[in-house]
């Protein structure tokens, strides 16, 4: 048992460059130590009890359901990532794992070595379509690994929406899960990306979502985290072209003994760039969450505008949310605001609703829905909005 060079053998028929890359990532995994608590990023995030080798069976190689919008314009490529690596090496090879680096930590390495079942979407220059592309990633059984990877390439002035949904058949499943995404936005591209993580409540989950934005492009990214006993997600935007704009939004709802960790990065590499981040979460029972977000404004990124907020609604005395906003600014000509809040339902709000005859449970539910209301309005497209609202409703009860 365990992840080793022999386990790569099941991934047959891949091009040499990909096989090499996988072997390299596996070597990185074997070389890197387990993250330690002395490392700032892992100080509050305990993975000492996680042995990925225990789940080294890969559930399926291409277990993905892709819903193609009808009348997809010609030139658009939408297919499983492993297939695309074979069919379109000129598009995949120069990009795959260049935003999400395999050597970042041993889980990123493991994901890069053993990813299966992801999506490749390529939209040529100038192509627009309204109907979203829907990628559904399923796990059918527990005790194994499901490691999908999405690679999106948006040509110049393209415009489209994409949804990744991670679904467990058995909510009580155990195992190792990921769900990472790389998005390349060409000049003037407009991309809406939504990821809804609903893996089972007993899995370990690690994901990296990272986008690179060229001149005048706009990304609207929305992350929803609901599943896993442990979930660590990094959401990062690299603003590489002037006039680019990244909107990074997320909601999470933790209950039972769930632990969620979010690390975000708004990296303003050039001037006249804009980023707007809002992560909102509710915590019940004995759940815990950690949010740490960095706004980095590099030396030549003058006239940039960055906003970051993390809001936590703590619904139980035993739940705990930690929020750590960070700034790293090397240019004075910028606008930058950040803020974090952690608190219970406002007792005066609750009293006001109850004074009108609304029972406590209903009033609390309304206040939780109200808490999420402004961020739900920012889900970039209707299909995802309905899905997320329904998921949230069933969580709030």
């Amino acid at each position, binding site marked *: 048992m365990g992840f080793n060079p022999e386990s790569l053998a099941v991934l047959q028929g891949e091009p040499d460059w990909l096989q090499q890359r996988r072997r390299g990532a596996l070597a990185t995994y074997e070389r890197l130590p387990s993250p330690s608590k002395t490392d700032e990023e892992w100080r509050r995030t305990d993975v000492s009890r996680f042995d990925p080798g225990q789940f080294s069976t890969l559930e399926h190689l291409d277990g993905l359901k892709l819903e193609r919008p009808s009348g997809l314009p010609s030139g658009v490529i939408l297919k499983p990532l492993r297939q695309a690596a074979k069919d379109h090496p000129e598009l995949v090879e120069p990009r795959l794992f260049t935003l999400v680096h395999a050597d970042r930590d041993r889980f990123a390495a493991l994901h890069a070595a053993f990813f299966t079942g992801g999506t490749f979407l390529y939209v040529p220059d100038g192509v627009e379509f309204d109907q979203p592309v829907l990628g559904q990633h399923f796990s059918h059984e527990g005790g194994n690994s499901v490691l999908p990877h999405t690679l999106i390439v948006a040509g110049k002035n393209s415009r489209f929406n994409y949804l990744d949904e991670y679904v467990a058949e058995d909510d009580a499943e155990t195992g190792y899960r990921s769900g990472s995404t790389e998005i390349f936005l060409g000049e003037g591209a407009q991309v809406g990306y939504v990821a809804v993580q609903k893996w089972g409540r007993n899995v370990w989950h690690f994901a990296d979502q990272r986008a690179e934005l060229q001149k005048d492009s706009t990304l609207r990214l929305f992350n929803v985290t609901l599943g896993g006993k442990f979930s660590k997600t990094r959401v990062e935007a690299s603003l590489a072209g002037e006039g680019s704009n990244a909107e990074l939004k997320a909601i999470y709802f933790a209950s039972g003994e769930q632990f969620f960790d979010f690390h975000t990065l708004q990296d303003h590499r050039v001037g006249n760039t804009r980023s707007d981040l809002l992560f909102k979460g509710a915590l019940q029972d004995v759940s815990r969450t950690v949010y740490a977000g960095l706004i980095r404004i590099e030396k030549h990124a003058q006239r940039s505008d960055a906003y970051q907020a993390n809001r936590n609604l703590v619904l139980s005395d035993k739940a705990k949310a930690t929020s750590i906003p960070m700034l790293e600014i090397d240019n004075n000509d910028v606008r930058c605001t950040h803020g974090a809040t952690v608190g219970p339902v*406002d*007792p*005066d*709000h609750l*009293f*006001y*609703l*109850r*004074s*009108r*005859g*609304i*029972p*406590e449970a*209903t*009033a609390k539910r*309304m*206040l939780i*829905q*109200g*808490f*999420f*209301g*402004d961020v739900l309005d920012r889900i970039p497209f209707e299909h995802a909005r309905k899905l997320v609202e329904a998921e949230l409703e069933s969580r709030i009860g």
Partner: protein
Amino acid sequence: MADFEIKDLRASVEGRQILKGVSLSIAKGEVHAVMGPNGSGKSTLSHTLMGHPGYAVDGGEVLFKGQNVLALEPDARARLGMFLAFQYPVVVPGISMANFLRTALNSKRGYDGKDKSKQVTPKEFRSMLKGELEVLHMDDSFLPRYINDGFSGGEKKRAEILQMAMLKPEIAILDETDSGLDIDSIKFVAEAVNRMRGPELGILIITHYTRVLEFIKPDFVHVLVDGKFVLSGGPEVADRLEKTGYSEWGKEETAQPQEVA
């Protein structure tokens, strides 16, 4: 016969006793005014009657429809027929006024999401709103807005009275409803309240100043000083306070508002 009876009510805030034995009987159809200077316990009285968790009851009882309401949760008191118009209505982001009003009405009717026959229909909701909005000189543009969010002082107070009109309580406590209002707003609010006066409604107006009592005429006036009633009588008590303020109880405060230019 009293429909709502406060008996020897004692209450404290953060360990300090504020109400030191308040008794008052209200029959439906009557309007009672409680007047008092700052710090006399007026807002403690209104909050304690409605069951705010920040106020501790130290003794006494409040009887309404055969129950001691002090043992009930705030929402149960409201469903029983009590209403509090807040001095400072809170802003609640994320919940629209329309959703709030509809949920409150449904709760009052005992609709719990199951028995659809109890649910207020959209048509019924609109027609209930329409008449009340006119009296209060409001329009329905506030319905999609979040609860009290961005409302002016006058709009907030009018919205309180609108809620009262829709929920049709049997005992209404109006806590400093006139504070912060210009004279036009006071008139609109008073007109709406006066329309509701009648044999099915008892009203308790809590106020520092006599001005609102020119528009909503009380049947009884009680003066609250240091947590106890020091004087009770008819409307003439308000006239006396109008002239002398609270000086006879050692409080150098007038009962007339400072005129705002």
